């Protein structure tokens, strides 16, 4: 029976049946602007900060260098994005599970270069690494996940045995699939996709012992979600959810950036100057953040072709700019309340989530909208990751929290295309997951021998207005009169909110079942290929890194030697002079090549040839030191060089953490 096939659970995990190791399941908030990883430790969820105990957030910015390096996080955002605008991808979440056409709005003011659409269905692909590489949003997200994975493994001291990744509640099936694919690509065992507002409610509910009906207002960098939840006796029941998966703080930045460009007397799309766009977007983001505290600020932007532009921006101006975008939150909120069957006045509280809710304007807006002051006791940047960590802990079975259960919903109705392009809904929005539905259809034409099934998601009546999720065929039905065949179609939505579809022609027993792969998603083959690619790249990357390191080391030694020869030529014995010169030539030749082992060997050769010279220099330095400056100064100098070396090593280490494998 086809329906049975839907329940087939194929593994990555007889392995899962293994004894759950406690404490190494983590929650990941894969955000538009920032990403975080958190784990439950000693019964409390905490954000992991890595061995350096730095910030909890990792900026969701990925830089692809021309030499193959991948750098993720703050360095990518602050140092590399301004210089390599096209090779440094920020806000990739907005492109997840989207086709090139969908992303049009986001592309209007963007520093990226997109590969021309190829094939059908076509994917968004960024041209990066100086034009040498094409990457999909899934691959870019996987880089961010790898960094979080490395951070968690370093902090928890071992391999992770499962993760929960959060997604906006309003993400459709394609966006969810893409997120799961990114997790797989990063080598993670994704135990569950969890809706962000639900995660936040979980963190609040368990921490504050809250009971009642809550609204979660989640305005992040690129997505807006509103969920209405009922919290009672450990049951977190989502009554309704709504939102806009392309509305967030990023849009504020773009509006402010457009204003700045106009004020600079430039076209408000930046006129195709990627570096200008990146600079202005960064200035806009900085201005927005500064205006959270200050009533007005000075804005300085480097003009194209030199010179700087200086201007002023006050909070009222900024608020007037972003207000129209914020107003788009009203309708989803009203609809979610109506769907949940509650009035704003009946709510126990409103929880704020997402970086954009730090803005005074947004808080004021939420207060007006719900007629009450919102709660923000838990850091709105961290609350989602903390909730995801709790869920991961529960799923891994280490929590002992048998009383907690999450009842989440399908955010958007799921249906099939009927004759005439009308969408027939099989599962309605806000249905509790997991859920299923079966409906019987018949043939339209005489002697019709197949069915074309087109799975769509959305609230609109016409298929053209809904999102296309998948198309598949059921063929080989014997010719019958129209209306005679009986096609039974079953939808199943699992606890991740992912859809599977099966179809069975009842008179013949012919059947087919598919796991819905979104039209803009990746097939299993593509994910496999990317996995293989990333392994291949991993080796390349290691080689590239070694090469870069050896080249840097060669530079350093050659420079030091040159300086020493100028400083104390008399210490270099004539007998050694020729050998040193020869070793320098060998090293210079090797450095120009691409074999890091050859460079290493040449460095060692030069070391040997100049050993005597170096010893004499050290003796003299110690002499000078003992006579003139005292030991302390010599030690200090030695320390200095040691520190400099240590720093280099430190940079390498953190790079290593950000790379494949």
């Amino acid at each position: 029976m086809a329906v049975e096939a839907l329940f087939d659970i194929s593994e990555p995990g007889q392995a899962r049946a293994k004894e759950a190791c406690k404490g190494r399941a983590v929650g990941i908030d894969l955000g538009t602007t920032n990403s975080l990883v958190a784990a439950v430790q000693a019964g409390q969820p905490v954000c992991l900060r890595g061995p350096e105990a730095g910030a909890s957030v990792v900026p969701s910015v990925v830089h692809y260098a021309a030499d193959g390096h991948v750098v993720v996080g703050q360095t990518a955002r602050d140092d590399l994005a301004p210089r390599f605008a096209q090779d440094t991808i920020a806000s990739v979440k907005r492109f997840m599970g989207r086709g090139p056409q969908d992303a049009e709005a986001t592309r209007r003011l963007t520093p990226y270069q997109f590969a021309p659409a190829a094939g059908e269905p076509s994917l968004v692909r960024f041209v990066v690494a100086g034009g040498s590489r094409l990457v999909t949003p899934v691959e870019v997200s996987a880089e961010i996940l790898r960094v979080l994975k490395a951070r968690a493994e370093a902090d928890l001291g071992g391999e992770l045995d499962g993760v929960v990744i959060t997604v906006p509640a309003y993400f459709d099936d394609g966006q969810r699939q893409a997120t799961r694919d990114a997790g797989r690509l990063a080598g993670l065992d994704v135990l569950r996709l969890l809706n962000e507002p639900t995660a936040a409610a979980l963190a609040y509910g368990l921490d504050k012992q809250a009971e009642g009906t809550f609204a979660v207002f989640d305005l992040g960098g690129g997505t807006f979600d509103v969920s209405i939840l009922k919290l009672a006796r450990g049951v977190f029941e989502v009554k309704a959810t709504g939102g806009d998966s392309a509305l967030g703080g990023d849009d504020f930045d773009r509006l402010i950036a457009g204003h700045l460009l106009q004020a600079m007397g430039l076209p408000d799309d930046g006129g195709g100057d990627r570096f200008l766009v990146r600079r202005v977007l960064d200035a806009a983001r900085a201005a927005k953040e500064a205006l959270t505290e200050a009533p007005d600020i000075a804005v300085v932007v480097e003009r194209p072709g030199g010179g700087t532009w200086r201007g002023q921006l006050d909070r009222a101006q900024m608020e007037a700019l972003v207000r129209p975008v914020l107003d788009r939150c009203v309708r989803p909120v009203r609809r979610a309340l109506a769907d949940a069957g509650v009035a704003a006045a009946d709510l126990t509280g409103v929880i704020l989530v997402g970086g954009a809710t730090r803005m005074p304007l947004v808080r004021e807006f939420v207060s007006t909208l719900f007629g009450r002051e919102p709660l923000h006791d838990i850091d709105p940047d961290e609350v989602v990751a903390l909730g995801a960590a709790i869920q991961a802990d529960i799923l891994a079975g280490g929590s002992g929290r048998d009383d907690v259960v999450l009842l989440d919903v399908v955010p958007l109705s799921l249906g099939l295309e009927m004759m005439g392009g009308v969408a027939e809904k099989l599962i309605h929005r806000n249905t509790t997951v997991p859920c299923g539905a079966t409906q019987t259809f018949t043939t339209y034409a005489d002697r019709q021998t197949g069915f074309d099934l087109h799975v769509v998601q959305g609230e609109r009546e016409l298929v053209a207005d809904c999102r296309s999720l998948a198309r598949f065929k059921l063929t080989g039905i014997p010719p019958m009169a129209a209306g005679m065949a009986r096609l039974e179609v079953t939808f199943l939505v699992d606890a991740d909110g992912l859809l599977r579809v099966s179809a069975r022609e009842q008179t013949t027993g012919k059947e087919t079942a598919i796991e819905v792969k979104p039209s803009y998603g990746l097939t299993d083959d593509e994910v496999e290929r990317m996995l293989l690619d990333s392994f291949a790249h991993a080796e390349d990357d290691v080689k590239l890194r070694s090469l870069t390191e050896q080249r840097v080391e060669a530079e350093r030694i050659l420079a030091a030697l040159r300086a020493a020869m100028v400083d104390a030529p008399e210490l270099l014995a004539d007998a050694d002079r020729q050998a040193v010169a020869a070793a320098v030539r060998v090293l210079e030749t090797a450095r120009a090549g691409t074999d890091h082992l050859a460079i290493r060997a040449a460095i060692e050769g030069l070391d040997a040839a100049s050993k005597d010279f170096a010893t004499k220099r050290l003796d003299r330095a110690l002499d000078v030191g003992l006579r003139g400056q005292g030991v302390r100064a010599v030690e200090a100098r030695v320390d200095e060089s040691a520190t400099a070396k240590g720093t280099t090593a430190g940079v390498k280490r953190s790079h290593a953490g950000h790379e494949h494998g």
Partner: protein
Amino acid sequence: MSMICWSCEKNAGEGLLCVGCGAIQPPFAGVDHFAVLGVERRFDLDLAVVEARYKDQARILHPDRYARADARARRASLQRAVQLNEAWRTVKDPVKRGEYLLSLWGGTAQVAVAPGLLMEVMELREALAEAQAAADHGRVAALAMDVRGLEARALGAVAAGFSRGLAAADDIARALAAVRYYQRFAEEVAVHEEAHAGAAVVHGG
């Protein structure tokens, strides 16, 4: 209706979990929604009690409990959860519950709609269209209130019909049809309000 447990291969009993080893068991086919929830098969139910039953079960069989379990346990949990959610979705909604009960009785909710009802609904729709065209929000709200009253009365008729039993099946079906018409009317009002209201109205109602 006892089954052999997939895990310990002994008699599993009739419950959700095997009486011997505690492993979650796949659902039985052909069990009605009331039985799934463990409540009496009737229209007139205390929904608070049913909801508590639903949540107690959800806590035990939710797939989150079995994220780490054997594939067969995960499959059983998924099937059970789908079955339970569908049962609650049907039983908590009076129209769905009524239609479902009728179908269990072997009856059908598909009956000819009373001509009086059609006339009434057409008049209400005209009044709504006029009020909306005139942007008379007070009138729209008053109409919505009237229809809510009619809906409540029709639901009363459904409940009364069920208390009379199978003989009242046609009356029940007609009353259910009326409820559906009134609900559709209310939805249209809501869509209109959604399209025309601003931020300020949200916390007003």
